[in-house]
Structures are given as structure tokens and as C-alpha cells.
């Protein structure tokens, strides 16, 4: 589990995907709010250009947030938080400068609320500590501006009061975002411990039945040739040139069956299972996986789970054409490149919508995953480090 940050997005990609609409909302509503409040306060604005640029900066931060939180670009890095918060801080500064000596009421200023709202919108994507730190830095910045600008405000209270008014929105929202993330991440941690215990119990419970089934398979193979052959010998038959030749032949058969078994990777098994399950009627598809170096074996368990879920989802999709499917794995230094390709007749929008949860999960494991849909062919590319 190393390499995963303690963010909701990385521990529960679906929960983060669920909050995707809040990203859109933030990108529309926050700049809208800034523009509306600027219009309301238009009588206090001395420098219109600065005021306009400030609102445009808020819009730019909103667009950056919306683009970066797309499930196709997951996971969101700390860079996004830094960019969104610092651009919003820039907007706060410009907005204050645009009415530097004419700003009557600090409570009507939108700057700190914008920082807070953007931090809330980023809550599912970054760790609690980062969210809280960003909020505190935003609050300090807002406090400094409030202190310097204090003379322009008409309310007759000490500058400390302006500081309180300025920092309360950003602190309330960012600390709430941090608390939200913290609770969710902790409950994910607790769930992981429980799931692990359940898996261990499952290992103990199903290990025995799997062992019996594997043993049954082996016994079936042995009963075909090996057991009858040895039985004849044990019953007193003598070793001759013919029986020696027969021993070599049987050994070769058993050996080649074992080599084939050993050479089959988990990925081939998954593809075969999925194709059997969903492509009723059509013949079994073989040769889908081209993996000369058996590189699929180098994937970690988490990576395998994500790929398995994706393959099953693709097969379950009504427009998936198993006969055109291919998975190629090639090594590139310490990395392995995977290209999955298949014909899928659905429209681009439908496909992206239907596959979004699985792509979101896969993106957490393979940060370079790319999806191309050049109708009717869907291509997925990603790479992973060899273990």
C-alpha cells in the first residue's frame, strides 16, 4: 500500500468520483459569487481593471480545479491545491487593491470565502493536513491584508475585529474540509483492517476447498495415463524398451501440460473467465493477451485488482466486441507498458460515463492511464513499475 497518499481519492476512488459534481459547481458558482459581490460593491471600486482581473483569476482557479479533478486525470497532486489556493490568494489581493481606500465593509469582500470554498471543493482529493495548512496560510494572508487595509473600513472597531471577520470564513471552511477528509480516511483505514481480517478468514475457509479442487484436477490428469501405467508396472509387468519409451512419452505429456499451466499468467485467466462469462454464444477467444515476458506477473495485487475490475467492466459492456480485443505488454527499462484495445461501438459520452468508475480506480494505480476512443476503437494505455 506504499505510494498511496492519505486522500479520499486514493483510498476510495469512487467516493471522490461521487463528489465530482461539486467540482463543476465550484467552478461555476465561486466565480459567479465573486462577480456578483463585485457588482454589488461596484460603488466602492476605484480600479475596475484590477477588480475584473481579480474575478478572472477566480475563474481561472475554478477551471484549473475542474480540469485537474477529472477522473481521467486522477490522482490530484498537491500542485493543484497550491495553484488553486495561490491564484485565489492573488485574486483576494487584487480585489482588495481595487478598492484599497474605499472598501467600506470587510464582510462584503469575497476573497477569503473564495479560498475557503475552493479548499472545500478539493477536500476529496488532498490529505487533511494539506487542506488545513492551505486554509491557515490563506487565513494569515487575509489577516495581513485586513490589518494593512483597516483604515478604509467605516465600522468603528479595532483592526483585530477585521482580522476575525476576514479569517473566519476561510478557517471555518478549510478546517471543516480537513475534518471531513480526516474522518473518511480514518474510517477507510478501519475498513481496511476489517477487510483484511475478512480476507484472512476467507483464506482459511476457502483455502481448503480450493486445495481440494486443485487436487481433484491433478488426480484427474494422473488417472488418465500415469496411474494406469504405474499400476501395470507395480502389478508385475517388466520394464522393456517399449515401456521405457512409454515412460518418456507420458513424462513429456505431463511436463508440457505443466509448462503450459506455469506459463499462463493471471491476466490470461482473467480475460478467459470474463470472456466466458459475458460473451455467451460466441466461441472462446484466445490470443488476446500478448505478453512474451510474462510481465503481467510483475503487477502488484492492487494493480491486478484494478485491471481485473476494468477487464470485467469492458466485457460486461454491451458494445464490447471480444473478437477484436487485444492486450499487449512490453517492458521499457524498469517499467512495463500496457496497451488494451477493443472495438466498442457505443458513443464516446456513453462509454466514458459507463467506464468512469473503473477508469477512476485504475487511474489511482496507474497515474499515466490514458483513454482514447477513436470510434469505434477504444484504446487504454498505462504503465507500471516492475516489482
Amino acid at each position, binding site marked *: 500500500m506504499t505510494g498511496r497518499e492519505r486522500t479520499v481519492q486514493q483510498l476510495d476512488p469512487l467516493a471522490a468520483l461521487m463528489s465530482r459534481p461539486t467540482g463543476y459547481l465550484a467552478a461555476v458558482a465561486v466565480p459567479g459569487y465573486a462577480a456578483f459581490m463585485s457588482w454589488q460593491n461596484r460603488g466602492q471600486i476605484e480600479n475596475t481593471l484590477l477588480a475584473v482581473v481579480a474575478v478572472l483569476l477566480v475563474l481561472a482557479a475554478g477551471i484549473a480545479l475542474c480540469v485537474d479533478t477529472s477522473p481521467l486525470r486522477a490522482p490530484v497532486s498537491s500542485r493543484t491545491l497550491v495553484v488553486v489556493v495561490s491564484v485565489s490568494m492573488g485574486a483576494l489581493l487584487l480585489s482588495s487593491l481595487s478598492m484599497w481606500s474605499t472598501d467600506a465593509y470587510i*464582510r462584503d469582500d469575497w476573497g477569503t470565502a473564495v479560498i475557503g470554498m475552493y479548499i472545500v471543493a478539493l477536500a476529496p482529493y488532498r490529505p487533511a493536513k494539506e487542506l488545513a495548512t492551505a486554509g491557515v496560510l490563506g487565513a494569515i494572508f487575509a489577516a495581513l491584508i485586513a490589518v494593512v487595509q483597516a483604515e478604509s473600513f467605516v465600522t468603528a472597531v479595532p483592526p483585530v475585529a477585521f482580522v*476575525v471577520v476576514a479569517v473566519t470564513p476561510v478557517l471555518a471552511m478549510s478546517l471543516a474540509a480537513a475534518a471531513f477528509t480526516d474522518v473518511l480516511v480514518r474510517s477507510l483505514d478501519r475498513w481496511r483492517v476489517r477487510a483484511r481480517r475478512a480476507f484472512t478468514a476467507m483464506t482459511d475457509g476457502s483455502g481448503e476447498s480450493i486445495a481440494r479442487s486443485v*487436487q481433484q484436477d491433478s488426480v484427474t490428469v494422473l488417472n488418465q495415463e500415469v496411474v494406469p501405467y504405474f499400476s501395470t508396472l507395480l502389478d508385475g509387468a517388466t520394464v522393456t524398451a517399449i515401456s521405457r519409451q512409454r515412460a518418456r512419452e507420458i513424462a513429456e505429456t505431463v511436463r508440457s501440460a505443466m509448462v503450459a499451466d506455469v506459463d499462463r499468467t493471471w491476466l490470461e485467466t482473467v480475460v478467459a473467465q470474463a470472456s466466458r462469462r459475458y460473451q455467451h454464444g460466441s466461441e472462446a477467444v484466445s490470443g488476446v493477451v500478448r505478453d512474451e515476458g510474462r510481465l503481467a506477473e510483475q503487477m502488484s495485487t492492487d494493480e491486478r485488482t484494478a485491471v481485473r475490475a476494468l477487464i470485467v467492466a469492458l466485457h460486461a459492456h454491451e458494445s464490447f466486441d471480444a473478437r477484436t480485443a487485444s492486450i499487449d505488454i512490453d517492458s521499457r527499462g524498469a517499467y512495463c507498458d500496457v496497451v488494451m484495445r477493443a472495438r466498442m461501438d457505443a458513443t464516446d459520452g456513453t462509454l466514458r460515463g459507463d467506464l468512469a468508475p473503473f477508469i477512476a480506480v485504475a487511474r489511482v494505480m496507474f497515474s499515466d492511464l490514458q483513454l482514447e476512443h477513436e470510434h469505434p476503437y477504444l484504446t487504454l494505455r498505462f504503465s507500471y513499475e516492475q516489482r
Partner: protein
Amino acid sequence: MSLGLPGHLAPHSESRAFARASHVIALVCLVGAALLVATVQQSRPGAILWPALVALVPIFIVLWMVERYRSWFFSITYVIVGAASLYWFVLAGTSQFVGEAATDSFVFTLPKVALIFVGGAGLGVWRMIGWSSAGLVAGEIATLLAALQTGAQIAPDLTAFAVYAISAILLSLLGLSRNRLKRAQPSLQRAARDEHLSDIRHRIEVRAAAMLHDTILNHLAAVANAPDGELGDELRSRIERDLQILVGEEWLVDADDSETAEGRAGWYASRLFRALDEARELGLEVVLSGDRTAVTRLDPARQVAVALAVKQCLVNVLKHADTNVAEVVIYGSGDEVSIMIIDGGKGFSERETSVDRLGLRQSVRKRIESVDGSVQVWSTPGTGTSILIRLPAKGPAVRERAL
């Protein structure tokens, strides 16, 4: 491995997270309100503002309680006591600034917002929105009543309404998008389970393949090289014994069994001791050195695996190395046991050996890797072969990888 919370747990965690976030917002707002009152008091010593500060105490207390025990009782208490606190707060504040104070002043907005973020009992976003609505209405009524009493200006508090509206829209969006994604969660959980089961199956298959290789293929090879006539007694008894085990017994189910030999303990009871003995019976001279008791620090499954793997290495020496002497060295360090098998035979290049790649790969490498160990092979044609098997010894966290 787990990817996210399963469907039945997610609403609980989310409601808890929303409640905690709500309570943080409420706390920050109440602290903000208290600080504002304190600074105004400082700048206007003539005003009597301490009753306003005292008015905030009950709401702080009920906030702590609803955070601590998120029950229906404390959620309702929070709304009622909070509204009463707010009423007293607005009353105490506006009465000091008659003609000046308005109900939408920022200092009054803050506790109103605190009242909106009840973070009450129950699951789901719709219930959260319900609690916020109750908080908003109670707060507005309390403010209105206080203002009517002191004659303060009554103005609609746009900020409080906006905060309520934004939080309600946000929560509804989350509630709606949840339904869309519900169906994907079971597929992911199933993938995680299948992956786990396939891993278990794979490990068992490796054990089965190694076992078949050690027994059936070795016996077939022995028959293929046997002279004319009946089978030798020793080969016959081995074949009989192995067939009986492979076909008749549950040889895969109980591989963890340590099979302690009667009346013997430690090294002499170990599977490795027996494996070396069997190799000697086949005609190999085995020189043993190092700390042989270290083997007993391996858990039973690893003891079996290492014994079978070493046996296969020794059989390989006899079959392919053109020598009948091999050295086995056992080392034990803190959390690891290493066993080295060295021969001075003709050596090989692992890449070129197709004939017995199955033996080295299946019976040695895969078998050891399936119990979390590692195998290194050094061999060049003409200079002999060294095989190093390393296994984690008994201690904590040895099962981690299997999970």
C-alpha cells in the same frame, strides 16, 4: 486489498464525516463571534457585553455534546438550546447599541451559521439538509424575537441564507451522484475478492505442480532409465507410496502439517534432515555445515517447502552436474534463514537449460516464492553451481504479503 468502503458502510462514514465538518464550522463561527464581542467590548468599555459572551456558553456546551453523542436527543437539544442562546446573544448585543445594531450584523450571522450546521443524527444527505433547515428556521425566529424586543433594525441575513443554500445544494448534488455510482462498487469489491481467491489458488497450484514434478516426473525418469526386468524394490516402494498419497490422500489440504518424527526433535525431526537423507540414499555425498538448528525457526509450511526445494536441487546435482558431491550450508540471521546448495559440477546457464527448467522453476523457485522466500542461482558452465534460498524466519508480519 480494498478499494473504498462497501455500500453498506459508506453512508455511516459519510454522515459521520459531514457531522464532524459541520461541528468544526460551528465551532469556528462561535469562536469568531466570541472574539468579535470581546474586541468590541475592549474598544467600547461603556457597553455591557459580557452577557452576550455568557449567552454563547450553552451553545458551546450543546455543540460539544452533539459532537460527542450524535443522537436524536442531542441534535434536537442543539437546535433548541442553540436558538435560545442565539436569542439571548442578539438581545444582549442589540440592547447595547440601540439604533445602531441590525439583525444581519456579521457578529450575529456567525452563531446563526453555527446553528445551521447541526450535523445531527441519522444517515444520508437528505437528513443533513433537514437538520440545517431546522437550524436556519430556529435561528431566524430567535433573532427576530430578540430584535422585536430591543427594537433593533430587522434585515434579512443574506449571508446566512447563502450559506444554507450552498450547503444544501452541495449535499443534494452528492446525494444524487451517489445513486449513479452505486452499481460500480460491488464490481470493485468482487474484483478484489476474486483477485484474492485467484492468488490463493495460484499458490496451491504451484504447490501441486511442484509436488507432481518431484514425484511423478522423477519416477517416470527413473523408469525410463531402468534396466530390463521387474522394477527395483526401492523404486517400486517409492512409486507405490507416492501414488497412494497423490491419489488417495488430501496432500494439498494439510501442507502446513509439520509431521514431527516420533521420538525425535529439532533438526533430526525436520523435513530438511529427511530430504538430505533421501538424497544420500540416491547416491549423493552431502556435506552439511553451518547452523542446522536455524531451520527449526521456519514455520511448518516453509520447512516443508525448503526441504522439498533442497531435495530437488540435490536431485538436479545428481542428474545434471556430473558429480556426486554437494555441500549444503545453513545460516540463520535475525529474521531470515538462508540455505546454500553448492556443487563443483559442470554448471549450466539458466537461460539455456530448457530440459529441466521446470524443475528449477517449479520445484525450487516457485515453491520458495510461494512461501515468501527468494532464490538466487549462480552458475556458469564449467565452474559449478551455487543456489541460495532465503526465507523469512518466524516473527511478526510474515503473513503480510499474503493479504
